[in-house]
């Protein structure tokens, strides 16, 4: 188990999982200290398969290569001004996803057999969208467990 920590976000990354914490592509700045929060809006990608190099903020390119056993998580930060809005009213990291919450039609680019979901929330005065995708809707029960297990190791400051 390795822990990635930067920009006020921390994630325990178990064996077999890959992850990357970065600043959103349109807001990227010169990073003097990647561990310090407040450099820009953050995006976190984690997957139980090899992440491709080029990915948009919601990881569409990763979903294109995701196998039926795959689980992909994207945490996308929004402007802190959104914290008071109705969309982000849920407080805390949603780490209790339910298998039936996944929907094959919830993906930005629907892929054969895959399913996804989005949860908007706020934590530590920051607004986020959690985008989760699984490689097989048919096997959503074990894959949801795997997604929840990695979300338990996610922290936001």
């Amino acid at each position: 188990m390795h822990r990635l920590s930067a920009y006020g976000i921390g994630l325990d990354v178990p064996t077999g999982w890959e992850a990357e914490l970065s600043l959103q592509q349109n807001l990227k700045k010169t990073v003097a200290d990647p561990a310090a929060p407040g450099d820009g809006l953050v995006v976190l990608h984690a997957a139980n398969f090899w992440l491709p190099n080029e990915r948009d903020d919601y990881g569409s390119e990763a979903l294109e290569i995701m196998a039926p056993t795959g689980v992909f998580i994207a945490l996308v930060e929004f402007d802190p001004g959104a914290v008071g809005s109705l969309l982000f009213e849920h407080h805390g990291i949603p780490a209790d996803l339910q298998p039936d919450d996944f929907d094959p039609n919830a993906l930005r680019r629907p892929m054969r057999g895959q399913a996804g979901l989005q949860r908007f929330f706020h934590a530590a005065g920051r607004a986020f969208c959690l985008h989760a995708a699984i490689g097989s809707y048919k096997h959503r029960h074990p894959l949801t467990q795997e997604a929840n297990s990695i979300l338990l190791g996610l922290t936001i400051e």
Partner: protein
Amino acid sequence: MALALVLLSCAVAVLALLVFGLLRSHAEIIRALHRAGISLEESGGHAGRPGAPVELHSPPDGAAHDIVGVSPGGSPTKISVTGVRGLTLLAFLSSGCRTCETFWTAFAEPDLDLPDPRTRLVIVGQDAPVESETAFAELVPPGVKAVLSSAAWQDYDVPGSPYFALVDGTNNRLVGSGTAANWDQMRNMLRTALGDYLLETEAERGMTSGRDRERRADQALAAAGIGRDHPSVNQEPSTSDGDTPRNPSAEQ
């Protein structure tokens, strides 16, 4: 006269100390350059001149390690090497190593021929300030995974660049590691190492030929004192009762 001799001896001693200090400092500089992947030879690099002897070996412990570092864009990242299906080829390169140039060029080829189709290439540099993040990022070919991680250099006991390690993520084992003067040599060595490794792992799992299994069975029986002429070897199967399995349906 005696005073002059004493003074002369002192001067010689001081000069000897100075020379010793200079030699030691020189050795430390060479060691630091070597660790940074910079050689003082004309061709530079760990592997020496093109065409020089190459080496590939299996590490003593054979353990594989995941890689935690920073992407060339400055993003903290963990690259999964263990616990995954497929092979990872770790290429430990430096921007300042002249022997590495041939590998940077080879890895930029769109039809790069890796030792096995299931292989992912990951280029691993050292942390700043040993490595220039900007120079490294400029050399990384598009589409190739790269990371800056001095910890990975330590984990894989990298003596200098260029250096390669082929990892089997399924079994969390190192297939082989070493260096070469160019990519063709390296790829051929990796293919040979992979072939040997697959034979070894298949043998460990008992996936050997029928003849091998027969030979092992014979050896085990011989060790137990049972030869080919032992009565139990050529005994006809019993047809009466005793050990013969009964058919449950026949009893109904």
